């Protein structure tokens, strides 16, 4: 249902990636027969679209399934159900082999610059590898492209003979970016690309990514737990909670007027330097276990506005304001109706 709503909003623009009702459940095996006894619902019924050239930010606490979502979107992890479309082509059921030619269009920048680069390869080999795998360029052409790209990301040609251990985190992330961009992809999933970096380096890398986006007309799915970073980078923002998207809207709209209680609390919890923070609402309690999510609205256990309805009916993502979707009963005018309807079923 939520997918339909999303589709309406984006009809006039070019859609690059569309995912609808995507679920990713990890089985938890137990017992003597090792049968799945339960599922971790890492991504639960998520739908959205990403437009050409935009950055869709995905925010949420650790463990809410945002990294899994990134991997499922690229089909690096097979989804449990749902549909993923990339450039009008359904990639949901494509095998690893069938995905290979498509990989040059979609790339990923990883979170940890220390484990995402093979330490036994030189910078040149690292950046060149995608070209060797995906293209038929001659050695000379590859050399040229690599040297061009390494300067684009702010490293020197002399760095090409070095190995990853000789670089700092920020520089390593530049190598990762060069590696992701060398094939000139259209879509890049950035999985917390700066969360492992120092504040001062974060800004450099983010600005580099913004510049490159403009230059190469890139589309980003930008995953982060840092609201400031997402605000800086994104055109639209999706807020994730326990595997579900609870709110999705344009950057301005969500930061100026967050609708979902979870988004409101998240935004209030951004650390600021001013003193008026004392009476801020903070999130109490832990993120519930995705093995056993609360009934109805997943957020109700920590929500200051929770009422009985929230326990029984899972709120669907609906358009509250123009282009601003939230999944919360607070904004449902037919609260009554939904409630009685639920009662009838029971």
């Amino acid at each position, binding site marked *: 249902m939520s997918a339909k709503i999303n589709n309406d909003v984006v009809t006039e623009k070019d859609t690059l990636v569309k995912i609808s009702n995507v679920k990713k459940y990890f089985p938890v095996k137990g017992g003597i027969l090792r049968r799945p006894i339960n599922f971790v619902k890492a991504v639960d019924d998520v739908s959205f679209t990403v437009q050409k050239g935009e950055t869709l930010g995905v925010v949420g606490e650790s463990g809410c399934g945002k990294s899994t979502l990134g991997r499922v979107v690229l089909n690096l992890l097979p989804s449990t159900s749902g549909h993923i479309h990339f450039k009008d082509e359904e990639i949901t059921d494509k095998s690893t082999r069938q995905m290979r030619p498509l990989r040059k269009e979609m*790339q990923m920048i990883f979170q940890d610059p220390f484990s995402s680069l093979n330490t036994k390869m030189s910078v040149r080999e690292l950046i060149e*590898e*995608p070209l060797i795998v*995906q293209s038929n360029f001659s050695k000379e052409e590859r050399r040229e492209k690599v040297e061009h790209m390494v300067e684009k990301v702010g490293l020197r040609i002399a760095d090409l003979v070095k190995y990853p251990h000789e670089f700092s985190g920020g520089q390593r992330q530049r190598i990762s970016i060069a590696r992701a961009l060398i094939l000139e992809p259209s879509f890049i999933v950035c999985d917390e690309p700066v969360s492992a970096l120092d504040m001062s380096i974060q800004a450099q890398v983010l600005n580099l990514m913004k510049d490159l986006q403009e230059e190469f007309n890139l589309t980003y799915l930008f995953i982060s737990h840092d609201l400031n970073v997402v605000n800086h980078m994104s055109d639209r923002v999706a807020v994730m909670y326990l595997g579900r998207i609870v709110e999705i809207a344009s950057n301005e709209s969500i930061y100026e007027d967050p609708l979902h209680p979870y988004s409101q609390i998240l935004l209030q919890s951004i650390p600021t330097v001013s003193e008026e923070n004392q009476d801020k609402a903070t999130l109490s309690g832990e993120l519930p276990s995705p093995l056993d999510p609360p009934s109805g609205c997943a957020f109700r256990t920590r929500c200051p506005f929770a009422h009985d309805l929230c326990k029984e009916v899972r709120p669907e993502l609906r358009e509250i304001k123009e282009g601003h979707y939230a999944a919360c009963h607070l904004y449902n005018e037919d609260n009554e109706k939904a409630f009685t309807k639920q009662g009838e079923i029971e």
Partner: protein
Amino acid sequence: MTKNNEETSVESEAKTSQEIEDEERKTPFQMSFQRFMKNKLAVVGVVVLVLMVLMAVFAPLLTSHDPTKSDLMLVENKPSAEHILGTDGSGRDNFARLLYGSRISLIVGFSAMLFTLFFGIVTGAAAGYYGGKVDAIIMRIADLIYALPFFVLALTIIAIVEEVTIGIFVTIIAITTWPNLSRIIRGSFLTLREQEFILSAQSIGANDFRIIFKHFIPNTMGPIVVNATLMMATMIIIESGMSFIGMGIPQPTPTWGNMISEAQSIRILRDHPEAWLPPGLFILVTVLSINFIGDGLRDAFDPKSGDN
């Protein structure tokens, strides 16, 4: 004049900074090599092993005797100028047999190691990379081989085959020892599989072959090289042990193992130490130096383990 001076000074400065950079810039392999060279014992091991290899290669230059030619007029002679280490029970020159025997021992050790390495890498990589059913099948076969005592298995096979050649002997050792290496490689693969650079390789669309040989194997090189080296020492011991009980390379081919088997006779053990002591010492020294090399390699590849 001053301008010239300045230019040269700038140039030399640039040069030194470049030199410093060159010195600092080392590939991971070079760093490992440097750590290895710091380990004195390991370097001594290399020197000894090189001497052994040279001895094996140049055996014909070091003795004029034929190691397989028996002379029944010269049975169990004491050392003399002609026969430095005397002769054995069939009148063959012990010194020649010692030199030529190193060939067999080293060849058996080395080729059995290579063969096992091949088996171990293929099975370990397949099990660790593909997981699931492939993993289960390979590991159950490995368990099966593990469950059988090595000597019983080896003796059974040797009893079945008509003639034990070096090739057969090496094959027997390889098929009975690969599970060791296979498990080590599988283990490393399972750890590496969780690393993001493997996902990164998948995300650029690299095929399995490339991921295994460009990403997994280079990062498993440490344990592979260390275990291969230590395995070679074990192979030499196995060959000697089998030959000692008469189940190895058959006479008259000289090997260190079947030279010592002469000492099964109490008389020779007591009266002719020159017949069995040198091959025994050679086995000891070779195995010891290979083990030192192995230890050195382990420290070189994994500086965190070990005391220094």
